[in-house]
């Protein structure tokens, strides 16, 4: 079974995601990057499920959970971003420092 290439893809996706989160200033882009990270994790789950031939299909079930949660998260996240944009006329994440001491 081919494991390594899949892992590399997943790692690459993960790194892209991290990069996106840290670097992009647009909040929507940050959300998208988070999606990338989640999907990299999904890939890993499915891969290891297949590799270990889990009879209970734990990896696959978990990846479905993650997809669901990701959808919900994006929904809430976009809603927050939308509200922020409405109030501040910007989606630049650097402008938001409400949680500062």
């Amino acid at each position: 079974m081919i494991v390594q290439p899949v892992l590399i893809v997943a790692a690459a996706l993960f790194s892209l995601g991290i990069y996106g989160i840290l670097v992009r200033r647009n909040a929507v882009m940050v959300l998208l990057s988070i999606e990338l990270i989640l999907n990299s994790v999904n890939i890993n789950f499915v891969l290891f499920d297949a590799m270990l031939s889990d009879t209970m299909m734990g990896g696959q079930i978990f990846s479905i959970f993650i997809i669901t949660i990701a959808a919900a998260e994006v929904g809430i996240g976009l809603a927050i971003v939308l509200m922020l944009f409405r109030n501040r006329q910007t989606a630049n994440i650097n402008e938001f420092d409400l949680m500062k001491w």
Partner: protein
Amino acid sequence: MNLLAESKLSYGDGGVFAEYAWILVVLPFISALIITFFGKKLPYKGAEIALATIGSIFFYSSALLYKHITEGIVNEFFIVVGNIGTFDIEFGWVVDGLSIMMYFVVGTVALLVFIYATNYMKGEVRYTFFFTSLTLFAGSMLVLVSSPTLIQILIGWELVGVCSYLLIGHYWETKDNSSAAMKAFITNKIADIGLMIGIIILALNTGTLRISEILYQSTHDYEDIKNVAFVAGVLLFIGAMGKSAQFPLHVWLPDAMAGPTPVSALMHAATMVTAGVYLLARMFPFYEAMAHEALDIVMLFGVITLITAGLIAVVQDDLKKVLAYSTVSQLGYMVAAIGSGAYTASLFHLWTHAFFKALLFLGAGSVIHAVHTNSMLEMGGLRKYMPRTFITFIIGTVALAGLPPFAGFFSKDEILASLNHEGETTFLVISIIGAFVTAFYMTRAVALTFLGEYRGHGHPHESDKMMTVPLMFLAVFAIGAGWVNIPGVYTGFTTWVTTRANKINEYHPESFDYTALFSGLIAGLLGIGLGYFVYQLQGSADKGDKLIKVEPIWTVLENKYYLDHFYFKYLINPTKLTIANAVDRINTNFLDRIINSFGLAASFLGQIVYNNFDQKGIDKFLNASSTSTDSFGGKVKLLQTGKTQQYLMLFLAGVVTISLLILFII
């Protein structure tokens, strides 16, 4: 154990009459309650209820006496009111010769005094309350004389004391009167210590509080009671000394004259003061069998009392005080008689004295009512204004002086005869001198009050019928009461009073003792003669007193042997003022100060602990720790910029660092 089968005289159990004798005791209390709550609303302000009550008592006691004379009654009844340890606390009533005699005396004298008082007290303050107290007194006295147990005696004993307190202090607006009442109560209370301890000793050594059983044990030589007989006998006598005003505890009785005159007549002459004699008589079998030495002490005090009180009576100018000291003196005779073992003679004198002394007091009251003063110096010549009072008073005087055929002659003669029989020559001589003194001061009183010219102001007048009729009835008794016990002729009285559950061993004179009879008679005649000579022929008290005034004896007598002075200076004032205040000062300045200083010390210690340990120690440390936390936090918070990406950056750096650490170091 059939106690009732002891005495050899023949008697019955009295039937229903004896069984319902409790009514005598209970009725007055119920009436007193009724008078208290409804008396003021009644037409005669409650006096009618009092009269009805005492009338019923009189009739019941007369019936009892009649039955007793005809067939003899000895019986006793008990009601258990509680048990304590092995003791039964019992009340009850005893119906025998002694108690029936007392019922009759109380009933008769009380009835006459009540009738008298309805008029005498008319218009006085607290008329209704006066009758409540009098009724209460009658009840209490009956509780006392009907008592088959020592505990009930004690109850009656103190109840009559309280009634006496209430009635002496009837005019309590004046401090002197309430002080006199207090004096009476407290003097009696002091004597009651003796009575109480005596009762306790007897009860513990016989295991019972029933008098008849105690007497049974003492006449049957029980060991336990024998050991304590002398002490118990003396202690009981101390109790009797208080109530029966024996020297040196007699001081309350003259002061008790502060009460209204009917009270003096009923309580402080006829009935209450004889309670001590009654107690000694009730316990007589015990004294006779076991406590003979105690009887000698009784006799000694009796004789001392009869002469000392008689002498004081000579120098009194207050009519009621003369009679009061005379009462003390006559009580001395009774006590001396009991002490010499003459049970009947003593009771006989109690019996006659009750009538003629009540008569004298009521007569004095009649006089005082007319002239509004107690002082004989402001009287005189009243025989013209108050003939009925005068005649009855003379009868009383002659009875008291002991001239035949009046009551006092027989009873005094019997006492003198008993003393003679016992061979107590010294005491006999003193008693005869006492008889002389008695006759002298009574003649003085009559002379100053009724003879000569009127020295006061206003117009005295004879008293109302309601007052003179009781006087006449009492006069009849003062004449005839002595005829019930004439040696050799009729000795019914001896039989009455010796008909008791416990046999009385005593000497009854079978015929007249002529030594005693003539010496007593001559002493009485001499006294009257001298008194008449000194006071009538000289005309006034001042002149008469000057004639016989012997310094310094006179001064001593006028100051009543300095007894009151002594009591106040050395007993009452030190206790009341010095010691009591010292105790109070100890309490506030010593005991309280200790407590307070504990408190102060605690609070001082608290200050130290608080300032040095708490504030400068523990608290400082705690404060330091909180301030340091605060300043550290102030610096650390700067990290929190609120920029998400910075957080993530740091987070990532952290993850990487930890991963590297895990990879390469561990």
